[in-house]
C-alpha cells in the first residue's frame, strides 16, 4: 500500500459498546469509508470493565448530539436515567454522606469564587454544606427534575445532568444504526493477526480462516486485547482487582443520581436506569476472602494508544478503576478524537502523534481523578489504609496539595473535571483549603451569609417549579 494512498477501509475489532459506538459515529461522520466490524466472543469489556450501566457526563451529551445521537434517542435506546451527581456514603472519616453534583456550585460574589466564600465561613466556624447550594443536589434531594428548556435564562438553566445508560441496550441500538449505514459485520475474531513491523496490523485472521485487511484497525476489544502493546501497570496505586456487575429491574425508575457506597474492601455503586439500576461491585480480593464470584481486572494503560495503523479505544487503550464513572466518557472521547484527527492517508504519523498526545493527557487526568477520589477518602478498612499510606504520584499529589493550600484547582489540558467538579470532589472527601482568599476573608460574614441565603432561596424556588422525577420519567416512557 503506498504511503499516501487515501485511507479507505477500516476494521473495528470488537463488537461491544466501544466498537459499535465507533462504527456508528464513524459511519455518520465519514460515510464513504468502508467499515467492517469483527465480533469478539465473550462478555463486553470494551469500555474497561463489564458494567450493566455506564454514565455519559453532562458535556458528553452535546458532543453526542453533534455526532448524531440526541437525548431522546439515548433515553429510549439506553433505558437511561438522568444523573445529577453522585451520592457518597461511607467515604468520609466522619461517617457523613456527601453529594458531588454536576455543574456549578453556588455563585461567585463579584470576583470571589463561591468555594472561597465557603472556605472563609468555615474558618470562621460556620459549617457550610456545599451541596445545599448546588441546583442538581437540591433537585436530587427533592426528587424533582426537568431538563432546562432551550433558551431558558432562569436559575433552571444551570441544572446540569448526565445520563446513566443500559450499556448493552444502547450498544444494540448503535449496532442497528451502524449496520443500517453500511457497516459490514465481517465475522468472528479470536485474536489472530498478522502484525506489521511498526506496531500495526496487516490483517486479522477470522474464525472461519478468512483474512481481513484494512488501512486502519480500531481495536475496541477491551483490556485483554490480542493487539495490546507495551502497557503501564497501575496496580501499585489501585488495589481493587475484582469487579462484578448486575442489572436489577424495578417498576419505578431509580432516583436521578449515582449512589456510591464505600465498604471495608472496596465500593459499590448503583446507577439509575429508567427501569431499575445498574450495580457495580468493586473490591480487593486480598481484603475480601469469600466474596461472591467476580471478574479480575487490572488498571493500567497502553504506552501509546495509536501505533502503526492500530488505534486502541476505550478499554483496549486504558483500563481505569471505574470509581469515577468515566469509562464511557473516555471511550466517547477516543472516538470523537479519532474522527477529529481522522487521517487522510494510510501513513499518518502526524495524526497518530497528536492523537497520542491528547489521549495521554486525558488518560493522565482520568487517572488523577480516579486516584484522588480513592486516596482522599476517609473510608474504613485495611485496603483504604494501604491506599492512603502510599505516596501519590507527583501530579496527583500536587493537585490535592494545592487545593489544600489555597483552594486553587490545577487544570491541565485533558481534564475530565473542571474547576467545579474538582472542588466538589475535594469538598465531598473533606479536603479543605488551609488558607482563604484574601479578598474573601475581608468580607463581613453578614454579607456572605446574605449572599448564600439568596442563592439558596432562588434554587429552592427553581426546584419547586420542576415536576416530580417519577412523573417526568413516566412522560419519557410514554
Amino acid at each position, binding site marked *: 500500500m503506498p504511503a499516501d494512498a487515501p485511507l479507505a477501509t477500516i476494521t473495528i475489532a470488537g463488537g461491544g459498546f466501544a466498537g459499535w459506538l465507533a462504527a456508528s459515529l464513524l459511519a455518520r461522520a465519514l460515510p464513504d469509508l468502508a467499515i467492517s466490524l469483527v465480533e469478539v466472543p465473550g462478555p463486553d469489556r470494551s469500555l474497561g470493565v463489564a458494567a450493566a450501566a455506564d454514565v455519559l457526563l453532562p458535556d458528553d451529551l452535546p458532543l453526542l448530539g453533534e455526532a448524531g445521537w440526541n437525548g431522546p434517542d439515548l433515553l429510549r435506546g439506553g433505558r437511561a436515567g438522568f444523573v445529577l451527581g453522585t451520592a457518597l456514603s461511607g467515604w468520609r472519616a466522619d461517617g457523613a454522606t456527601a453529594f458531588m453534583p454536576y455543574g456549578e456550585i453556588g455563585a461567585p460574589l463579584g470576583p470571589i469564587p463561591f468555594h472561597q466564600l465557603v472556605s472563609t465561613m468555615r474558618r470562621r466556624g460556620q459549617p457550610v454544606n456545599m451541596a445545599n447550594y448546588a441546583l442538581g443536589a437540591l433537585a436530587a434531594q427533592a426528587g424533582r427534575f426537568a431538563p432546562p428548556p432551550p433558551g431558558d435564562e432562569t436559575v433552571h438553566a444551570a441544572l446540569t445532568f448526565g445520563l446513566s445508560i443500559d450499556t448493552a441496550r444502547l450498544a444494540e441500538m448503535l449496532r442497528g444504526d451502524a449496520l443500517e449505514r453500511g457497516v459490514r459485520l465481517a465475522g468472528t475474531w479470536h485474536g489472530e493477526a498478522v502484525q506489521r513491523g511498526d506496531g500495526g496490523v496487516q490483517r486479522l485472521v477470522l474464525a472461519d480462516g478468512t483474512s481481513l485487511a484494512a488501512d486502519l484497525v480500531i481495536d475496541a476489544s477491551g483490556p485483554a486485547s490480542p493487539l495490546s502493546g507495551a502497557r503501564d501497570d497501575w496496580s501499585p496505586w489501585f488495589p481493587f482487582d475484582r469487579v462484578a456487575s448486575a442489572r436489577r429491574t424495578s417498576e419505578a425508575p431509580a432516583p436521578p443520581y449515582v449512589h456510591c457506597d464505600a465498604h471495608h474492601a472496596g465500593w459499590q455503586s448503583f446507577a439509575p436506569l429508567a427501569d431499575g439500576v445498574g450495580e457495580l461491585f468493586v473490591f480487593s480480593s486480598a481484603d475480601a476472602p469469600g466474596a461472591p464470584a467476580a471478574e479480575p481486572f487490572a488498571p493500567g494503560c497502553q504506552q501509546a494508544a495509536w501505533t502503526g495503523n492500530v488505534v486502541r479505544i476505550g478499554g483496549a487503550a486504558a483500563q481505569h478503576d471505574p470509581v469515577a464513572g468515566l469509562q464511557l466518557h473516555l471511550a466517547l472521547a477516543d472516538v470523537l478524537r479519532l474522527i477529529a484527527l481522522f487521517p487522510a492517508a494510510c501513513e499518518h504519523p502526524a*495524526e497518530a502523534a497528536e492523537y497520542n498526545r491528547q489521549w495521554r493527557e486525558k488518560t493522565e487526568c482520568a487517572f488523577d481523578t480516579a486516584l484522588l477520589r480513592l486516596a482522599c477518602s476517609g473510608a474504613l478498612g485495611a485496603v483504604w489504609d494501604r491506599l492512603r499510606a502510599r505516596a501519590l504520584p507527583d501530579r496527583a499529589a500536587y493537585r490535592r496539595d494545592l487545593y489544600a493550600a489555597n483552594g486553587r484547582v490545577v*487544570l491541565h489540558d485533558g481534564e475530565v473535571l473542571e474547576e467545579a467538579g474538582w472542588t466538589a470532589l475535594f469538598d465531598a472527601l473533606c479536603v479543605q483549603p488551609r488558607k482563604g482568599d484574601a*479578598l474573601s476573608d475581608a468580607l463581613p460574614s453578614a454579607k456572605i451569609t446574605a449572599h448564600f441565603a439568596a442563592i439558596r432561596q432562588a434554587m429552592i424556588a427553581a426546584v419547586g417549579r420542576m415536576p416530580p422525577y417519577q412523573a417526568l420519567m413516566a412522560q419519557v416512557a410514554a
Partner: protein
Amino acid sequence: MNGSAIERIVIVGGGTAGWMTAAALAHRLQGLPVSITLVESEEIGTVGVGEATVPHIRFFNARLGIDEADFMRRTSATFKLGIEFRNWGRKGDSYIHPFGVFGEEIEGVAFHHLWARFARAGGRDAVEAFSLPVLAARMDRFAHPDSDPESLLSTYSYAYQFDAGLYAAYLRAYAEARGVRRVEGRITAALQHAETGFVDSVVLESGERVAGELFVDCSGFRGLLIEQALHAGYEDWSHWLPCDRAVAVPCRSEAALSPYTRATALDAGWAWRIPLQHRVGNGHVYCSSHISDEAARDALLGQIEGEPIAEPRLLRFTTGRRRKQWDRNVVAIGLAAGFLEPLESTSIHLIQLAIGRLLDHWPDRDWDPFCAREYNRLMDLEYERVRDFLILHYHATERDDTPFWRQVRTMAVPESLAHRLETFRKRGVVVNYRDGMFLDASWIAVYLGQRVIPEAGDPRSEALSDAGLMLRLAAMRDDYARMAAQLPTQAAFLARIGANAS
C-alpha cells in the same frame, strides 16, 4: 480578619508594568487595610515608545472602570485590528494576523480546511478575503464589533496602539487617586532577611527605606530584586530568538491612520510600525551578530515614512524567562520577569496576566509555597507558548536571502513547536492547549500567512462538492467585502466617539 494578611506592598519601578500593577492592585484591594507604595526614579527612562496591545487590554481597562474615549484621547491611542507581517514567508509577501476568525465552518468542518480544499480546487481568493478585520484594516476602516453573534461585525475583536509613557501616566493618576503612594528615588540596595533571603525593604539614594511584605519587581530587564537580590536565574532563549537589540524612533505620520501594527521582516530582524494619532512609533529589532548597530539604525531611518521627531534610542536585551518569576516575597512582572520581543504585541498582555495570577494566588505572610509554585507553573506555560508562537514566525519561512534567515529557517525549534508545525502541515490540525493566549485562529493566520499549507485536510470536508464549496465561499467573501466597505474610516470613527487626542 486573617492575622497574617499582607499589609504593605512595594512596587519597584514605574513604567507600564509598575503602574498597571499599582492601578490593578489599588482597584482590587480597595477597602482592605493594605498600603501600596511604588518607587520610581524619573532619571530612569521607561522602555516603550509606541506600544501595541492585544484585545485583553480592554478587559483590564474595563475592570478598572476606564472610559475608552477618555483613555484614547489621553494616550494618543488608535484602534488595532491586527498586525501586518510583510516579507516574512517570502520577500514580497504580506498577511495580517487579525484579532478575529477567518470564515465560518460548514457542517462542522473548520474553515481553514474548507479554504485549503477550495485553494486546491482552483479557488483564487486569499484567506484574508474571509476576514472582516483584515479587510477593514487594509482599508484603514474601523468600527466597534457587534455583540449580536449573527452579525459579521461579531467576528472580530480589537485592541489599541498607544503611547506607553502616556498610558503609564494615565494609570499613575488613577492609582494615586486610589491611595497608591509614589516615592521618587533611585534604589541603591535591597535589604534581605539574613536567613530566608526575603526582601525586607529597599533603600533609596536619599537614604530612605521603603519596607514591605510583598515586593513586585517592575524594574525592567535588570531585575533589581528578582535577579540582583534573589538571583532567581534567567533561562536564555536567544538560540531560538536570536534578536538581541532594538533601536526605536518616533516619526511624523504621513499616511492614513491605520488600525493595525506592521512588522516588516528585514535582513537581520524586523521593523515595527505603530501608528498613533499624532505620530508613528518605529523600531528595528535585530540580531547584533548579523548587523551592526549603525547599520541597524540606518536601516530603520531608511524606511520610516516621515521625519524623525527624536534621536533613535538603542535597547539591548536577551530573550528568555526568569527561572522563578515569583521567588520568596518578590514577584517579577514585566521585563523583570522575562523578555519576548514585541512581534506579537504580547508585553502588556503578559503584565496583565501576571497581575491576574498574582491576585488569584494572593499570598499572606505565611508564604505558603504553593502560591508561588502554581503561579510560576502557570506563567512558565504562558511564556513558553508565546515563545513558540514567536519562533514560528521566524522558522516558518522560505527566506534564505541572508545568513540571519538561513539560520532561523534551519534551526532546531522546541519539540512542542515542531509537533505543532508538523501536525498542521500534514493534516491541518491546530494543536492547542488550555493555557496559552494565542488561540487556533492566530495560529492559523500565521501558518497560512507564512505558507504552511496543510498537505491533507479533514476528511469530513469531502462531504462538500468542489462547486458547492466555491459557491459558498464566494457568497461568504462577498458578504465580508460588502460589510467591510460599509465601515467608517478609523479617523471618522475616532471623531465620532470623541476619542481624538487634542
